[in-house]
């Protein structure tokens, strides 16, 4: 190989990232559209999956990309949900404006909670994140004049999207609105993860001492990612507020934070696709298996999680690749 071609081989990608990103985003749009056509009676569940997808994507940014341990991620989701709900009740009913409000509330909550928990790492960080979500849960319960307390924040009735598409009883508008949002946000996050900033965050996850020895101040970088993550979670919260018309205390709960982590690990923590796959599988499982066997569904989810962690440590998203490798290996055996 000449030196010029070696240089080219270093620069070139194994696959062209941009086109694979585009295909991935299109696939989400197509699958989301197909779900709308195939399951017209389950749009409520599908919309909840969309909102959860934002939440788990947001967790993926901090846990999967930066390696931050958190079991309190719902503070950002809840902030988005309550902010959007509150503003809507107060008269700001445009759904797009409410999504922006949710994103901003989530971002602020991300910056504030990040400033606290990112001072530590590992186990102390995990405990701090739990403490934060419990505090916010208690605060939301106490501030019942704003949040409705344990009755929930009700009376959220957003105006039609762009003044054209009213939110209907079947949840068609809500689902399609959420799907368009998700596709847009996913496309942006894909670019973010591949950017220099994304590379830096992955470096921090693997060895923050090494990154610091390159001259990087780690803390501000993490705060930035935490803020972005907060905005994404806030969009999910705002979406569920708009779609269901109610925000409950469970949106800022420890349980919801923990479920997000389970979904993320199930799908594959280090990949945005993994976050989506984990969300869809977990939420679908929860819906159908809990209906069939309300007392045993968690045990089944537990078994599934153990199987995934043991046999697919990189989550369900790694299954197709591993399956392909096996298949190719098998073919090679036949030919030889």
């Amino acid at each position: 190989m000449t030196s010029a071609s070696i240089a080219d081989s270093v620069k070139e990608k194994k696959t062209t990232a941009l086109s694979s990103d585009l295909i991935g985003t299109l696939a989400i749009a197509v699958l989301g559209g197909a779900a709308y056509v195939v399951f017209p009676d389950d749009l409520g569940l599908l919309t909840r999956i969309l909102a959860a997808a934002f939440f788990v994507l947001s967790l993926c940014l901090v846990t999967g990309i930066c390696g931050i341990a958190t079991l309190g991620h719902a503070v950002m989701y809840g902030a988005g949900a309550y902010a959007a709900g509150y503003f809507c009740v107060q008269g700001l009913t445009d759904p797009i404006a409410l999504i922006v409000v949710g994103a901003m509330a989530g971002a602020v909550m991300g910056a504030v909670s990040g400033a606290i928990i990112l001072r530590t790492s590992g186990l102390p960080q995990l405990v701090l994140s739990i403490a934060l979500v419990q505090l916010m849960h208690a605060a939301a319960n106490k501030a019942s004049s704003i949040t409705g307390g344990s009755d929930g924040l009700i009376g959220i009735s957003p105006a039609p999207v762009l003044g054209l598409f009213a939110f209907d009883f079947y949840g068609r508008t809500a689902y399609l609105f959420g799907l368009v949002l998700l596709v847009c946000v996913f496309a942006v996050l894909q670019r973010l993860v591949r950017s220099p900033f994304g590379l830096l965050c992955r470096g921090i996850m693997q060895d923050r001492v090494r990154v610091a020895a390159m001259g990087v101040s780690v803390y501000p970088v993490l705060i930035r990612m935490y803020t972005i993550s907060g905005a994404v979670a806030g969009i999910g919260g705002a979406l569920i507020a708009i779609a269901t018309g109610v925000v409950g205390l469970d949106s800022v709960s420890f349980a919801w934070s923990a479920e997000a982590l389970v979904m993320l690990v199930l799908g594959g923590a280090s990949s945005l696709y993994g976050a989506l796959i984990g969300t869809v599988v977990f939420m679908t499982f929860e819906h159908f298996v809990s209906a069939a066997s309300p007392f045993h569904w968690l045990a089944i989810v537990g078994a599934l999680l153990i199987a995934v962690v043991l046999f697919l440590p990189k989550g369900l998203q790694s299954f197709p690749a591993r399956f392909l490798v096996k298949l190719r290996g098998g073919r090679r055996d036949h030919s030889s």
Partner: protein
Amino acid sequence: MTILLKVEDLSRSFGGLIVASNISLALESGDRAALIGPNGAGKTTFINLVTGSLAPSSGRIELAGKDITRAASVERVRLGLVRSFQVSRVFREMAVRDHVALAILQREGKSGRMFGDPWKIAAVASEAPAILEELGLAVVAHEPVSQIAYGQQRLLELAIALVLRPKVLLLDEPAAGVPRGEARRIEQALARLPSDIAVLMIEHDIDLVFRFARRVIVLAAGRIICEGPPAAVAADPHVREVYLGSYANGSRSV
């Protein structure tokens, strides 16, 4: 010659235990110095004091004429004081080429960019392939670190340090744990370091030290006991006593 790193009367103690005692040394542009000493002599403490991981009890550190005694460690890196690690600290699940890209982006102040492909940035596209090729890492550029040999990881450490364009480079046992054949590759790379930077190497392998360094500094019990050209240091009876005992008594001569 310009003095790039100047350390004056640097001391540090933990309670009553003195781990660095009035250490003074200066590194000039083009210097190839080695810091040696028996285990527990305070070599790593010294590196930690200079890089800012540890605060000195007293003393002063200057980098290219600028007082950095109180500067944060990341600030020192940005000013040109770069270290490599004794045990390879590279990102296990990151491709080799991305390590170099990240270091270049950081140097250029572009590591915070939230859009675009790192490999489309001119400095990365032009420099990264060159340095990887020079260090023989181009063939594994796309491999994650967990898939490459340990010697290659050490070379990658060197690549990261070099693209940061240091004024002063601190090498903490660059060839530790590397099999002989691969160690030669590292030594070649060390011999080709940019001639204007000052290099201070900490190393246990005396043979390597004597081939690389033009100046040897001997540390024992937290203080410098001898300093000079390799041959003079090897001949110093005091050094033989505290450090080279096995060499002096054994069949090998230094």
